């Protein structure tokens, strides 16, 4: 296990190195005068020149890159061209917000998708099975921005059950913010014992989380169904049945664990997919996480932020896959 982790970590470092090079190179190669953007609208040429010196943009690209990497090692991701704030600081604030909804969505998609798939497999060829199949297909076929808008229309406009936007009610925002311990809102609220705050936050997260969860839910439900059906054909299931192991144990204990491995793999993918989908969901729900930030930065070509976000997304992608691989090894000892 340890060598495996070391190898994965080395892979991560390598990936990040390449990613930084690529994104950094891109940010310098692409048109879009970094210094001019830094100075802002209506900048004067001499101001831009000054900023260029200040940002070290007069140096050759490789020097700039090395400097950037040097600062990166110290946890300094540079300064946003748009807001002039340290990127690392904003990242620290916004990443947990997005991770929170993404993880919740992941949780929901597993907590619902897996039982759906299992029940469908168990009740194969019944109406339950076709219903799950239909729901699964629909869930993966819904364009996420459309789903988000639809949810707003139905649950805010028509039914009024859920709030429209943001991460807490404005009423709550007039109160003092909670102490940031973990930076995960729900957990911080729980730690602070402020259940009202927590409920309010959960209420606001609901629609974004549902939008995010839709695709993974469909994937997990469909995959767990087919994987389980395949596993139930295996020799060892037949053998256990022949030795007198009961049908329920066979299905839910023997079969399920065997079927889990592909489901786990799809979760790694889902994680990456959902992080990208926060770009849309957070925009539509006005949820101030990393996706919202990324989108705003994209349209203002805020390169330091984009580099940082790319790195973080890359790292999360690799890390979540590593975690998934560890889990898969644990579930299935055959995986080398």
């Amino acid at each position, binding site marked *: 296990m340890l060598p495996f982790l070391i190898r994965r970590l080395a892979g991560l470092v*390598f*990936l990040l190195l*390449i*990613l930084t090079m*690529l*994104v950094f190179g*891109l940010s310098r190669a*692409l*048109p*879009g005068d970094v210094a001019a953007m830094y100075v802002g609208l209506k900048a004067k040429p001499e101001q831009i020149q000054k900023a260029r010196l200040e940002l070290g943009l007069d140096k050759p690209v490789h020097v700039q890159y090395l400097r950037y990497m040097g600062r990166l090692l110290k946890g300094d991701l540079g300064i946003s061209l748009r807001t002039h704030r340290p990127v690392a600081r904003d990242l620290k604030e916004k990443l947990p917000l997005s991770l929170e909804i993404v993880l919740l969505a992941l949780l929901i998609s597993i907590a619902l998708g897996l039982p759906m798939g299992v029940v469908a497999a168990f009740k194969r060829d019944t109406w339950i099975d076709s219903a799950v199949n239909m729901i699964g*297909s*629909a869930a*993966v*076929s*819904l*364009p*996420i*921005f*459309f789903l988000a*808008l*639809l949810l*707003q*229309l139905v649950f805010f*406009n028509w039914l009024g059950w859920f709030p429209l936007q943001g991460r807490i009610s404005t009423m709550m925002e007039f109160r003092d913010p909670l102490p940031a311990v973990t930076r995960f809102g729900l957990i911080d609220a729980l730690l602070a014992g402020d259940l009202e705050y927590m409920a309010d936050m959960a209420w606001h997260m609901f629609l974004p989380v549902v939008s995010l969860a839709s695709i993974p839910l469909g994937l997990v439900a469909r995959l767990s169904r087919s994987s389980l059906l395949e596993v139930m054909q295996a020799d060892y299931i037949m053998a256990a049945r022949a030795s007198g192991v009961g049908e329920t144990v066979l299905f839910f204990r023997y079969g399920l664990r065997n079927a889990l491995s592909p489901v786990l793999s799809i979760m790694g993918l889902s994680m*990456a997919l959902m992080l*990208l989908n926060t*770009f*849309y969901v957070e925009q*539509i729900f006005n949820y101030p996480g990393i996706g919202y930030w*990324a*989108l705003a930065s*994209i349209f203002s*070509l805020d390169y330091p932020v*984009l580099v940082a*976000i*790319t790195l973080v*997304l*890359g790292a999360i*992608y*690799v890390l979540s896959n590593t975690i998934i691989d560890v889990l898969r090894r644990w579930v299935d000892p055959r995986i080398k």
Partner: protein
Amino acid sequence: MKDELKYKHLAEQAAREHRRERKIRTIAFLKRKSAAAALLVLVLITLAAVFAPLVAPYPDQGKGAVNLGERLQPLSGKHLLGTDTFGRDILSRLVYGARVSIFGGLFIVCAAALIGVPLGLWAGYSEGAPGVVISRIGEILISFPAVLIAIAITTVIGAGLTSAVIALIIPWWPWYARIIQGEVLRLKRMLFVEAAQMLGYGKSYILFRHLLPNIMRTVMVMMLLDFGPAIISIGLLGFLGLGTQPPNADWGLMVWEGAPNLMQQPWIAISPGAAMFILVMAFNIFGDNLQDYLDG
């Protein structure tokens, strides 16, 4: 001479038998209700897209001509799906937008396969360095958000369907390379590869004559199942204004354009969203069925 004729006859007969068997299987396949329904939807939408100028009630509005006299009309006999803020007939725009979705999706999927499959073949067959390098590059591209690629491309060649499609192909092909690499590694262990080696045939011969035909099925199914995600992805970029440019129609862009009016004129955003949903769902159902049918 006579023998030759006889064999020719035999060959024809065998081919005929094959065709008949395939026909029977295809009919059985189409008897599945969901497959047939999905196929029908696909065919209808594709036909509408191809013959857009004939199908659309107001072709010039489909292409972007404004009609300020009839802004924001609700659904009616004249405008079956209403009109948008420029007074353009939504149905006409849907029909033109279908072109983007279908042909854009087709292009992405084909290009991804065209790049990914040969690289995957190469990576799988030669193991060692090329395999590692290709899968590494793939990993990097996959972990690179498509939106950022789209931005990069947009800044160079400007926003448009072309940039969106290129931006999507870049992180898309590695999936093909990856799957094909795995498939080749599996097939390579098949003994017929060794048999061909033993006959003195070289790598490229084996690759193209033996391995390629055997992975085509996988590639086809993958392409079919990828159609939906590709269409949605074009929509996503269109939604961000990184895809098709106004006043051309694109379903994602139409949702984006209609979103501000969601409360008063919900039809503007809902029609293209629903159209996309139906198209993608049809592709998915058809692909699932096809996979079942090919596997079964």
